[in-house]
């Protein structure tokens, strides 16, 4: 059902937890499947210095979050925004069709976290 990359990220998820500064925090829940993902960002000079996640969801949701954090860590916010669901699915080596929607959450939570950060910046 799941390939080895996904099972590896599910069993040994990278960057689980909360980042130290939480400059940006995004949480999204999927109305389809009930999964929830939270992304915590530490940002320095428009660059993602640290990223952490928490996910309540299936293996696909957890692995997608884990993969995403690896993909965007160290990237600028602009670069990070360009990472699509398709990029995550490809990096995971593909997902069963019924599970693709579970990988959407990670990207959405990242976008929400970046927005949260940018909103806070604008306020300052």
């Amino acid at each position, binding site marked *: *059902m799941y390939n080895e990359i996904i099972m590896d990220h599910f069993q040994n998820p990278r960057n689980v937890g909360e980042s130290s500064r939480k400059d940006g925090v995004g949480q999204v829940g*999927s109305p389809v*499947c009930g999964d*929830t993902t939270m992304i915590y960002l530490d940002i320095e000079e428009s660059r993602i210095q640290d990223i952490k996640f928490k*996910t*309540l969801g299936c293996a696909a949701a957890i692995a997608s979050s884990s993969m995403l954090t690896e993909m965007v860590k160290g990237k600028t916010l602009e670069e990070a925004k360009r990472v699509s669901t398709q990029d995550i699915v490809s990096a995971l080596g593909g997902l069963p069709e*019924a599970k693709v929607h579970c990988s959407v959450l990670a990207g959405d939570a990242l976008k929400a976290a970046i927005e949260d950060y940018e909103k806070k910046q604008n306020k300052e």
Partner: protein
Amino acid sequence: MKTIYLDHSATTPALPEVVQTMIPYLREQYGNASSIYRIGRESRKSVEEARRQVANLIGAEPEEIFFTSGGTEADNMAIFGVVAACGEKGKHIITTRMEHHAILHPCEQLEKRGYDVTYLNPDPKGLLRVEDIKKAIRADTFLISIMHVNNEVGTIQPIEEIGLIAREKGIIFHTDAVQSVGKIPVDVKKLGVDLMSLSAHKIYGPKGIGALFIRRNTTIDPFIFGGGQERKRRPGTENVPGIVGFGKAAEIAQRDLPADMERITYLRDKLIDGILSSIPYTQLNGDRQKRIPNNANFSFRFVEGESLLLMLDMKNIAASSGSACTSGSTDPSHVLLAMGIPFEIAFGSLRFTLGKENTEEDIDYVLKVLPLIVERLRAMSPTTIQGQNGGDNKKEGTLCTTR
């Protein structure tokens, strides 16, 4: 490492005696049971012996047993067969929201064809209220289909009481007994049912074979049409190895029932007590008393079922979340939702269904491994509350608010 198999409601390993009984019919005794030469007559004899064995298990007459390809076909045959035979006299069917999809989906088809279907909800313990049936009956009700035991929470429904009502009103009564037969005593006469679905692979028999019990004189048409097999009620070359395997499994189920019930109940209770006492924010789903001996269904808050299953799998424990056929999806079980269990609790549910091969060591192992897995997943979860693993602190935490 060997698998600790705790998903016996999904399927069971065929017993060695069952496999031994089947093997000759796969090869040397290959005769078509409808052929009149010797090897055909031998197949026929074995088929009829199996019919007797299956009938015995449920207190029926051999002539009342019709072999099908499994529980799903038996359910479809019951629903569509009764509708074909009496669907002109009535237009209303009563069933429940906790039925297997093999009942629910045929009923949905019938709604499209203009029939009215009342889907009753079970109570929060997973039990149907007999009064609800009484209230639902209309003048044009011609069929009631209520499962004997629910496949997810293992609750035993009040079939006998419903049978009395159905008989009084002259309504045909079907029960899906796929999950009760072989686990608790089942007697078609006592239960007062007209139709009953069975599936061999749930009672240590082979996959791909089942049966529909049809009480003599029940008004029902065939569902599949073709040759003259099964007295024209279910044509197709008889699956002789499957049928003899089913017969053997039925015979053994009957023989072992009392001892199995006692032993498995003990193990199951140990599992329930152990989990409830070692993992906080956990509930047992389904009535604790009116349930089959082998079922333990839990909800763990702040985790998701499939993740739990996969983590257990990595520890060589096979369990299920929701019904077997949908365990690939993360939709929470329709049964738990019908019981009124909130989505976010149903979401983290896990079903253990014990069986003949399970030992006390298996249970000890699960009790050792599962708390760590739940803890690990909860640590990853954004919706857990502070201190939830402390044991004492059981107040509600913030839940996912975005749904």
